C-alpha cells in the first residue's frame, strides 16, 4: 500500500476552480474564431464567480495549512482573494471594447488575466519562501505581457518592457534576500520555522539582517513604496487602461497580504526592531506620492502617484502589526478597490470617446454632458481624498486609530497631512469635470494631446483603423454593463462610508487570521 498524502480539496477548491477556468478559457480562445469576445468573457466571469463562491464558502471554515504547509487558507488569504477576484470581474466588461484586448485576442488576454489572479490568490496564501517567490512571479509575468499587449501603441510596449525590467529587479532582490534568510535561519523556508530559526534579536546575525532588508525592498517594489516607486506612474500611464485598473488594486492587495504574513509570522518576535524602518518608509511614501501627483496632467499618471501615497497609508496599518492594524489594512484595500476601479473605468471610457487620451482635458465639461460618468468620478476622487461620508474616510479613520493605538501617532499625523496635500490634485479633477466647458475637439487641440500626436505619427495599420472605428462609436450597445459596474462601485463607496459595518465584518476575518500568527 502506498501512503498517499492527505489533500484538503475543500480548502484548495478556489485554486482548482481558477486553474480549470484558465485551461478552458485558453482552449476556447484557441479553437473559436478570434472575435469571440462574448463567450470568452462569459467563461472568465463564470470562473471568477465560481472562485468567489468557493472562497465565501471557505470563509466560514477553520483555517488550514495546504500543500505540506506551503500555503495557508485563512481569513487573510480569503478576504484578499475576494478583493482580487472582484477587481478582475470588474475589468472583464471594461475590456469588451478595449482596443488592446481586440488586438491581442480575447482568449489570450483573459487567460493571462486569470493567470495573474491565480498568482495573487496563491501569494495571499503563501507561507513559505518558495511558494512566495513562485506566486509572485506567477502574478507578475502575465502582467508584463498584458501591459505590452497593445502592440500597435509604442507606449504600451514601452511600459511592458519597463515593468518587466523593474519587476524583475524586485524579484531578484527578493530572491537574494530569501537566500540569506534561508542561510541565517539554519535552512528554514517556512515562515514559522524562520521565526524559530532567527529568534528575537535580528542584530545577532548579519545574514538575517541583509536577508530581511532585501526581502523588504523586493516587496516594496511590488507595492510601489517610495523610494522604489519610480516605475509606477510610467507603467500605469503606458499600459492599457483596464489592465492599469486591475494592476493598481489587485497587485497591491495581494502583495500587502504576503507582506503582512511574512513580517508578522516570520518576524513577529522581533517586531520592535523592524517597525521603525517600515515607519520611515511609510512616511517617505506618503509625502513622495502626494507631492509627485500634484503637477500631473495625465489622469492615469496622477492615479499612479496617488496609488503610491495610498500604499504609504496602508503600510501604516501593516507595520503596527496588531489585529486592529490588519483589520484597517484590509478595510482600506477593499475601499481602495471600489474607488479606484470606478475612476479608471471612467478614464477608459473617455479614452475611447475622445482623442485626448487620459489627459485631464478629456473629462472637462463631463458634468454637463455625461452626468452618469461625472458623478462616479467625482465620488471616487472625493473618496480617495478621504472626505467624510465615503469609504475612503472610514478606511483612513481606522488606519489612524490603529497607528495611534500602537503609539505611532506621528504616522497618523502624516496620513492627515498627506490627505490635505492630496486634496489639491483630486479637487483639480473635480473642477475640470464641473467648472470647465467641454473641449472643442478641433484638430489643433487634438494635436496638442500626446496620445493623438503619437497616433498621427504612426503609419495607419489595419488594427489601428479598427480601433479608431471602435473609438468613434458613441457609447451604447454593451456599454451599459460597464456603466452598471461603475455605478455599483460608486454607490458602494458611499454606502460603506455611511454604514461601514458590512465591510468591517468582512475585514475582521483577516484580523482573526493573524491572532494565530501573533500567538507564536
Amino acid at each position: 500500500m502506498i501512503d498517499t498524502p492527505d489533500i484538503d480539496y475543500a480548502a484548495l477548491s478556489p485554486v482548482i476552480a481558477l486553474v480549470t477556468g484558465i485551461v478552458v478559457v485558453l482552449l476556447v480562445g484557441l479553437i473559436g474564431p478570434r472575435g469571440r469576445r462574448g463567450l470568452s468573457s462569459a467563461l472568465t466571469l463564470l470562473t471568477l464567480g465560481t472562485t468567489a463562491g468557493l472562497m465565501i464558502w471557505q470563509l466560514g471554515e477553520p483555517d488550514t495549512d495546504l500543500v505540506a504547509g506551503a500555503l495557508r487558507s485563512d481569513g487573510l488569504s480569503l478576504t484578499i482573494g475576494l478583493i482580487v477576484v472582484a477587481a478582475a470581474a470588474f475589468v472583464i466588461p471594461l475590456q469588451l471594447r478595449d482596443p488592446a484586448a481586440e488586438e491581442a485576442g480575447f482568449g489570450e488576454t483573459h487567460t493571462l488575466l486569470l493567470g495573474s489572479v491565480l498568482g495573487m490568490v496563491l501569494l495571499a496564501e503563501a507561507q513559505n519562501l518558495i511558494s512566495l517567490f513562485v506566486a509572485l512571479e506567477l502574478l507578475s509575468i502575465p502582467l508584463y505581457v498584458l501591459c505590452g499587449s497593445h502592440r500597435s501603441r509604442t507606449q504600451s510596449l514601452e511600459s511592458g518592457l519597463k515593468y518587466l525590467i523593474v519587476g524583475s529587479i524586485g524579484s531578484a532582490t527578493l530572491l537574494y534576500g530569501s537566500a540569506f534568510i534561508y542561510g541565517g535561519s539554519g535552512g528554514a523556508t517556512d515562515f514559522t520555522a524562520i521565526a524559530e530559526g532567527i529568534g528575537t534579536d535580528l542584530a545577532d546575525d548579519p545574514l538575517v539582517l541583509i536577508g530581511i532588508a532585501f526581502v523588504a525592498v523586493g516587496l516594496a517594489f511590488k507595492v510601489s513604496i517610495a523610494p522604489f516607486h519610480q516605475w509606477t506612474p510610467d507603467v500605469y500611464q503606458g499600459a492599457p487602461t483596464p489592465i492599469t485598473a486591475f494592476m493598481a488594486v489587485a497587485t497591491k492587495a495581494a502583495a500587502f497580504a504576503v507582506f503582512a504574513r511574512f513580517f508578522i509570522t516570520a518576524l513577529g518576535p522581533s517586531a520592535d526592531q523592524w517597525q521603525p524602518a517600515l515607519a520611515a518608509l511609510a512616511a517617505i511614501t506618503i509625502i513622495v506620492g502626494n507631492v509627485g501627483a500634484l503637477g500631473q496632467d495625465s489622469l492615469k499618471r496622477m492615479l499612479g502617484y496617488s496609488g503610491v501615497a495610498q500604499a504609504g497609508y496602508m503600510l501604516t496599518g501593516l507595520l503596527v502589526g496588531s489585529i486592529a492594524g490588519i483589520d484597517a489594512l484590509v478595510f482600506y484595500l477593499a475601499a481602495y478597490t471600489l474607488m479606484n476601479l470606478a475612476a479608471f473605468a471612467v478614464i477608459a471610457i473617455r479614452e475611447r470617446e475622445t482623442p485626448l487620451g487620459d489627459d485631464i482635458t478629456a473629462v472637462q465639461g463631463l458634468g454637463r454632458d455625461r452626468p452618469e460618468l461625472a458623478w462616479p468620478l467625482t465620488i471616487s476622487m472625493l473618496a480617495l481624498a478621504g472626505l467624510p461620508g465615503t469609504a475612503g474616510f472610514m478606511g483612513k479613520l481606522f488606519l489612524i486609530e490603529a497607528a495611534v493605538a500602537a503609539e505611532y501617532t506621528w504616522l497618523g499625523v502624516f496620513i492627515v497631512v498627506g490627505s490635505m496635500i492630496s486634496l489639491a490634485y483630486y479637487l483639480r479633477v473635480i473642477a475640470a469635470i464641473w467648472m470647465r466647458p467641454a473641449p472643442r475637439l478641433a484638430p489643433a487641440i487634438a494635436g496638442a494631446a500626446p496620445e493623438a500626436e503619437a497616433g498621427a505619427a504612426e503609419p495607419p495599420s489595419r488594427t489601428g483603423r479598427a480601433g479608431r472605428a471602435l473609438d468613434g462609436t458613441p457609447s451604447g450597445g454593451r456599454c451599459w454593463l460597464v456603466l452598471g459596474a461603475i455605478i455599483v462601485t460608486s454607490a458602494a463607496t458611499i454606502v460603506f462610508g455611511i454604514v461601514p459595518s458590512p465591510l468591517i465584518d468582512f475585514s475582521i476575518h483577516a484580523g482573526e487570521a493573524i491572532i494565530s500568527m501573533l500567538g507564536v
Partner: protein
Amino acid sequence: MDTTWYLVLSALLFATGAGGVLIRRSPLVILLCLELMLNSANLALLAFGRNLGNADAQIFAMVVMVVAACEVVVGLGLIVAMYRRRIPLDVDENRGLRG
C-alpha cells in the same frame, strides 16, 4: 573550501548584475544582467544548502531556473515586438513615458 567564498562570489555577481541593469542601454544586455542577479541568488542558496546539509535549497534553485526562463521568454517577446515596430532598442531613447 569555506562557504564564505561562495557568498563573496555571489555578492559580486549580484552587484555586477545590478550595476549592469542600471548602466547598460540595450534591453538585451539588461535581460542578461537580470539573469545574473537571479543566478547569484541561486549560488548563495546552493552554498547555504550545502553548508547546512539541507536539500530545500536545491529545490528552490530549480524552481528559480524555471521562473527565470519564463521571464526571459516574455522579455525577448517584448523586444521582438518593439523591433518589429522599428522602436529603437535603447532604453535611453524610449522616453515616451515621463513627467
